[in-house]
């Protein structure tokens, strides 16, 4: 058997880091949305925004990295149409990982709360305070997030299907290589 061609360790690290941050930011967002006003809510909302800005920045870094580092090929056993769908899915994931933080930032400005990343760096308000726009952006934001939830579900489902049912190396390509030193 030929050894699995993996993503670069930079790509693998960034992928799982962003996955972890989304895993924190998503439920946090749902939770604070239901909270009554309190100091804890103010803190959690800020953390959610900081996570969002970080995810945006890391996504930009991932796209830049990917543009200069070809991903390893998918197993030849995977039909071409499935490979095409996988590419489209990945593209949509990248788009959402950029659009969601962007729309969240705009929403925050429209609702009259500037974003100050990590409590240190104030992002400019690209839109002024506007209640109707803020409410509209919240709708857009929720829609995009449920889109992300659906896409991540497909992404994870496909990875698990390839790993446990088809038993190909699709998932292994994105896992750290513990045996690298032995090769």
């Amino acid at each position: 058997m030929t050894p699995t061609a993996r993503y670069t360790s930079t790509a693998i690290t960034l992928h799982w880091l962003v996955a972890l941050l989304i895993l924190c930011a998503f439920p946090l967002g749902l939770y604070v949305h239901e909270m009554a006003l309190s100091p804890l809510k103010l803190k959690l909302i800020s953390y959610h925004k900081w996570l969002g800005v970080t995810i945006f920045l890391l996504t930009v870094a991932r796209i830049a990295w990917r543009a200069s580092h070809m991903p390893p090929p998918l197993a030849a056993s995977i039909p071409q149409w499935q490979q095409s769908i996988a590419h489209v899915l990945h593209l949509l994931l990248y788009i959402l990982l950029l659009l969601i933080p962007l729309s969240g930032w705009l929403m925050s400005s429209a609702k009259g709360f500037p974003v100050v990343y990590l409590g240190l760096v104030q992002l400019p308000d690209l839109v002024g305070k506007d209640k109707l726009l803020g409410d509209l952006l919240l709708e857009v934001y929720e829609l995009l997030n449920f889109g992300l939830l659906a896409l991540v579900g497909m992404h994870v489902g496909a990875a698990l299907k390839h790993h446990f049912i088809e038993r190909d190396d699709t998932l292994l390509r994105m896992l750290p290589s513990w045996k690298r030193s032995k090769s």
Partner: protein
Amino acid sequence: MNNFRRYSLLLIGVLLAAYLGSVQAVEFNRVQANKSTLTFGFKQMGVPMDGKFRQFAASISFDPARLDAAHAQLDINLASIDTGNQESDVEVMGKQWFNAGAFPAAQFVSTGVKALGGNRYEVRGKLTLKGRAQDVAAPFTFRQDGASGIFDGTFMLKRLDYAIGEGAWADVSAVANEVQIKFHVVADAVIKK
């Protein structure tokens, strides 16, 4: 002759006093509520926020030539607050914040005004908020625009000095202790005859 001399001097004195009076006693004391504003700024998780009070009654008497007689009083209707966020407007009326049910108004009463040079002055006085009185000092500028006197000043207060934000809200890492108060008061002059 002596009497004539005495009366002449008296007349000159009276005329002089009336003349000086008409020049100096330009007292700005008719506050133009619709042109005056009371705003505040603070930081929430490092995020600069601002708001204002829509209703306050200000009475001012200020004559730059007679600072010892200067006086100012502000009565602020706390329920007229606009924090920019409806949920917060409701929250700050509660017991942990202003407790506006028991203390519906804030009051500032001046105890003195001094000149700081140029058009700059400082007003000192007592600010009473939520039943707690504290001494405050606010530098301000004064300029005259036709018959109007325009007062612009700002000062910083610490909300916890007045127990504004108790319990969990006493956490200044969420809402900063420092609150910047900014006032812009326009008062028209009344020339005393």
